[in-house]
């Protein structure tokens, strides 16, 4: 199959007129073409190899069809009439960043201006960094807040939250304080994939450890972030919320942009949409990282990026963000 693909893809690439292109199309995909002949041979293939043969054949056919379809030849290239020697014209192809990356960069730029670094850590993590260091011991009911995808239960799993990056960061930087770091990242939950849920989604988190950090710093910084992302008219409230890795905990809710707080299906009639979680880093979390909570304090906040990105791009199905029907106009920024 590889040799067939190589031979014909080269031939197609070298073509410069539509008649020859059509010849190749018939040769490959016509009623008596190569692929129909190869498909009729399936019955002669030993039964244990038949499935693989069929799969390879289908894949090669699909790839050659792609190459053929994408060969762009002017319909008049072989015309005997006077031809203007002008290349085909289209506005230049413009490349695009994925909308999740765009949001991440917008946030990174904001936090860099405040002195934050951008941090990262592994996606396969240990139970210790995903839970224990974040004040969630074994059998803690907070573990039920997250359905984990295990690689080797109970020790190895895919990180369920960007707070896991915080656990790595605090340990790595415990002797180089103060610190400010932000980190976008993919996180994983054992969710069935459908229009509303996915097993992988994207979060953004920021962490500060310094002396005399307060909730006022936290809420003021979050407010700045929300205004940067959502504009000056966004209304956000900050309320008491529980996360095991912070105390006191703070929950930012944004007034529903669909119903302006009146209540609608999008906000489950609450009038507000939960935007993530935050709080002052729990003294136990600092202690586990080797940081003295009597000297240092800090805050952490995290938020999901997918819902916001979907709303921004009028995407109705979460699968689109990582699927084949998310596309960009080729000539438009």
């Amino acid at each position, binding site marked *: 199959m590889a040799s067939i693909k190589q031979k014909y*893809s080269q031939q197609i*690439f070298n073509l410069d007129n539509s008649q020859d292109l059509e010849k190749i199309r018939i040769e490959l995909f016509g009623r008596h073409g190569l692929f129909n002949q190869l498909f009729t041979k399936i019955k002669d293939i030993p039964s244990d190899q038949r499935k693989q043969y069929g799969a390879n054949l289908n894949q090669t056919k699909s*790839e050659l069809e*792609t190459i053929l*379809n*994408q060969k*762009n030849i*002017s319909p*008049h290239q072989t015309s005997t*009439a006077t*031809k*203007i020697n*002008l290349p*085909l*014209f289209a*506005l230049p192809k413009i*490349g*695009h*960043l994925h*909308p999740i*990356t*765009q949001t991440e*960069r*917008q946030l990174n*730029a904001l936090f860099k201006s*405040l*002195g934050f*670094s951008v*941090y*990262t850590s*592994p996606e*396969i993590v240990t139970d210790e960094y995903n839970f224990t260091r974040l004040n969630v011991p074994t059998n803690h*009911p907070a573990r*039920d807040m997250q359905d984990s995808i295990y690689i080797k239960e109970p020790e190895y799993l895919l990180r369920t939250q960007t707070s896991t990056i915080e656990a790595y960061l605090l340990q790595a930087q415990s002797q180089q304080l*103060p610190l400010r770091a932000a980190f976008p990242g993919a996180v994983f939950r054992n969710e069935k994939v459908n229009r509303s849920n996915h*097993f992988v989604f994207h979060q953004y988190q920021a962490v500060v450890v310094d002396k005399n950090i307060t909730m*006022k710093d936290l*809420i003021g910084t979050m407010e700045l972030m929300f205004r940067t992302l959502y504009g000056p008219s966004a209304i956000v*409230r*900050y*309320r*008491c*919320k*529980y996360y095991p890795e912070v105390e*006191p905990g*703070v929950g930012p809710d944004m007034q529903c942009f669909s119903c302006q707080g009146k209540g609608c299906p999008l906000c489950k*009639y*609450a009038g*507000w949409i939960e935007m993530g979680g935050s709080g*002052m880093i*729990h*003294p136990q979390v600092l202690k586990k990282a080797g940081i003295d909570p009597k000297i240092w*304090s800090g805050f952490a906040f995290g938020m999901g990026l997918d819902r916001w990105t979907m709303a921004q791009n009028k*995407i109705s*199905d979460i699968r689109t963000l990582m699927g*084949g029907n998310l*596309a*960009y106009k*080729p*000539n438009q920024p």
Partner: protein
Amino acid sequence: MKLIYSHLQKFLPDLKVDPQQLRDDLTMIGHFTNYFEEIDHQIVFDLDIKVNRGDCLGYYGLARDLAVLYHLPLNDLTATGKLNLQSLPALPITITTDKVKRVMAVKISRIHNQISPPWLQTFIKLHGTNPVNLAVDLTNYIMFMYGIPNHAFDIRKSGQNLIWEINPKYTEFTSLDGSHLKLDSHILMINNPSHALSLSFWGGEACAIDLDTDEIILEMAIYDPATVRQNSRFLKSTTEAGTRLEKNLDPDTIPQAFTDLINLILEHCRGQISSQVFDYYPQKNKPKKIKFDLNQPSQISGINIPSDFALDVFARLGCLIDTHPSLSIAPPSIRPDISISADLVEEIVRFFGYQHIPLDQPLTPKQLPDITPAQVYLSEKLKDNLINLGYDEILTWPLTDTFLDENTVVKTQNSINTEAVYLRQSLIPSLKHQLDQYQRFKLPPTQFFEIGKTFFKKGNHYIEKNTLALYHFNPDQLTTDLKKLHLQPQIIDHNFAEITLDNLETPPQYQPQVNSHPAYELNRQIITLDANINLNSRQNPKKLIEKYVQKIGLENLWQLTITDIYQDKTTQTYRYTFQASYFNLDDKTAKNIHLKAFGLK
């Protein structure tokens, strides 16, 4: 959790707050309230209760919070003190496991069980449970009111010799709703010497209360929450009782709740108490003193919170306040979630009000050493270079249904998505899948890339590689672009290439571009139509394109190109052939727009 205003007022008779205000206030102090609605003349709130507030899985816990917030007196339902039943026989109850924190039980004889009155049926239904009969519904009523599960055994079926034990021998159990469960040896149970009667979090069919029941043992118990949680997970069963028992509940609230239960049974089912109250409580709660500095709420919140306010909140919460030799606060036993001074600070700040913290004072910029890993800069730089070469960034699933090398593949153990079992070892299959999808949507030829992790197992170690893969419809251009970027791919597969980034030279620092370009969710195939336009003179193609883009409108147009220009020497005219691609439109609409824009109608 559901909360009915009128029943909340049983604990807070002076509560007169407007329901809208109550909803907002509950949310602000930590009990997110989605909405309230009027059902059967009752105002019913829908709340999400925090994982660490088991006490608030009952009206009593929420009422205690609201009493602090609104400075209202809390009305304990029970007016009676300790029940004096010493002359009655003791119950022959045995407890053989240390997983039981406290059990209270009593025998009540000559009850008249019946269908519940309408108010009780309504209450039970509004909490998402089916009414059963009066005795059972009253036990559930007390569970919802106090957040502490309890159970009634029909003595005719269970006998009096109840045993709390870890499953000694039983392999099967039939629950109250008739579910058949396979047990293992770690299940905490209530049995008699010969039969399995109940699980810690779910009653059994064998001793169910019915309308003929006339003698019962009432019990209220709290267990080791981890054991209940493990049992419930093992049996894949979630019950209202289990949801509460797997939290840290307060054994010291049991006497009050249990007394209320007894009183309700006696009031509504009549009958009489015919045993002493059994009370097993081997390790009593000891108040935990937390040293506290009254400056802390202000220091941590960043706003001035007066000491008097803090002391008043502690007193209203039911804390023991000791000022000698230094200030220490002992939270009430119903609040096991308060264990360190930061927890006390949260109590003060939430009642003071998060809304008093200013919104306009973010961190001030500070110059700190840059700890950004060099790989981050490399990825950002590559992304910018690639989009400048016209590539689009895509993201694909890190988990797939196939693997390349079974010796090094990382497999998940419990993924519920059969198409997402293995961590990817190459990005190229995902890019191929993306290309298939683009072809299905008849997208014009394109070029795209992904930077992401690939995963490998080596011995007992897991390796993550930062990887770039890219696709170009023209393989020669792909080669040219790779050269421009000084990239030497490890894999080249015709139109695809893949490079591991971990060994590449990294830039010292890099400031990535920040832009905002829309992406589109394709719901239909792209429809591409041709149009020939005859013009009297040669035109600037860019201006011509812009003219027709404006006529068609950007909301429907995916791409517009001039595919041919043909000069007819006899008429001295120029024929421009356009190719217009439309998205998320049906054929007819696209054709109409096309014909109108090019004046072909």
